[in-house]
């Protein structure tokens, strides 16, 4: 073990970690916002409303994230029309390509989690809302969505951790995220064990942070479900 290498390059690893955090944060927020309408439509009783989200989720859950990243980064840029469009300044950048791919991917998973939660809400609660004369929109806003939110927190925390680790794939499209930075450092130092171990420790610390945040949210939101302590 060469600890000097770790000390010397640790600031650059942290620099990479910051890119990783940005990728996960931005795509986590945008992805979860996208997931709400997709999940609601997927939950619909009308075939034509749930068909499209079904295909969307089927595609993004059924193909590897790496393939999706390559499709966005190398695939889309093959078309002359794309390169001349107003979106090119964004699609040109690996940063935005990675974020687009992550958003699409995580919104599919999150939508499916939401659908599962909506389906798991006890029938009695739905019926009680109807009996109270709530309109559908009010029922979703006041009862079903908050209830589903409480249920998806653990599963969603899981999804964020999976995305944190999946974000390592961004290094394949020239982004210097934590993994990309580690690989670039190793190209110079030839110390894969030291540098990858350090990167691993940083990933662990980030996962821990995610776990804590979600545990806190879960406790707060599901306070009413906890048994009364004597």
């Amino acid at each position, binding site marked *: 073990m060469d600890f000097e290498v770790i000390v010397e390059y640790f600031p650059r690893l942290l620099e990479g970690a910051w890119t990783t955090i940005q990728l996960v944060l931005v795509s986590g927020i945008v992805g979860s916002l996208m997931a709400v309408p997709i999940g609601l439509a997927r939950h619909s009783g009308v075939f034509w409303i749930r068909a499209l989200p079904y295909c969307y989720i089927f595609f993004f859950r059924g193909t590897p994230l790496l393939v999706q990243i390559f499709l966005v980064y*190398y695939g889309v*840029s*093959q078309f002359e029309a794309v*390169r001349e469009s107003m979106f090119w300044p964004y699609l*040109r950048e*690996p940063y935005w390509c990675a974020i687009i791919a992550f958003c699409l991917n995580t919104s599919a998973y999150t939508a499916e989690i939401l659908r599962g939660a909506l389906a798991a809400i006890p029938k009695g609660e739905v019926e009680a809302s109807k009996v109270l004369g709530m309109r559908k929109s009010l029922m979703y806003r006041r009862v079903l969505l908050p209830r589903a939110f409480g249920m998806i927190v653990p599963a969603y925390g899981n999804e964020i951790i999976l995305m944190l680790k999946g974000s390592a794939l961004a290094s*394949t499209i*020239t982004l210097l995220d934590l993994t*990309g930075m580690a*690989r*670039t450092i*190793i*190209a*110079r130092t*030839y110390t*894969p064990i030291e540098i990858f171990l350090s990167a691993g420790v940083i990933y662990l610390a980030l996962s821990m942070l995610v776990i804590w945040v979600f545990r806190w949210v879960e406790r707060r939101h599901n306070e009413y479900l906890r048994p009364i302590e004597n």
Partner: protein
Amino acid sequence: MKINKTLIATLSLTAIALSSTVAQASDKIRIATEGAWAPFNFIDASGQPQGFDVDIANALCEKMKVECEIVTQDWDGLIPALKVKKFDAIVASMSITKERMKQVDFSDPYYSGGLRYLAAKGKPFDTSKAGLKGKVIGAQRATVAGLYLEDNLADVVEIKLYDNNDAVYLDLQAGRLDGALSDELPTFNWLKSDAGKGFEFKGQAFAKDDKIGIAVRKGDKLRAKLNKALNKILNDGTYEKINAKYFPFSIY
């Protein structure tokens, strides 16, 4: 009693099977190449590694009278994997550099190359430091070209590092890169291909003292054997024949 006998028989059979595979593995030399550096090493339509490096490796094995297996490994994992004995030698157009010499031993050089910029045909592209200012330049990670950019032009150009050279070419075509820095010989090959016809060399080749060798583990006796075999193929015309298959000029 019977169970015992069966057990012993099974165990000894397993032991024999295991020891024979170990013995086999020790006679065979495993040689690694990258498979994304045409025409030196690439994967053909049937999934087999081909190219100048592979031909040289096979010719050397023939002269050393040993059985060889060619395996492929991503570029930036080659040296780490060699060190932990995943294979015994790297024949992957690897430049002999001071940094790498600290990690591995190299055979005598088996060809030499240099670096050269490439960019879109017909467009002016000034390869001086001032001319490159603000440009986006791509190269492969962990190569002489990649390190050259980081060491000399980090504050002048925006450097993009790729896992393999094919990805560099793809992004050149997509227009994400203003230019790329790569080894002259593989680029020479790509420029002749359909995909490369919109591009050309810019400026003259430099860093021409770039010698390419075969990497082995530090202190491995294989190095002496490889050098002897290399000497043989250089003298009996085998090298020349392989050279002519890929380039109309000598690359030694």
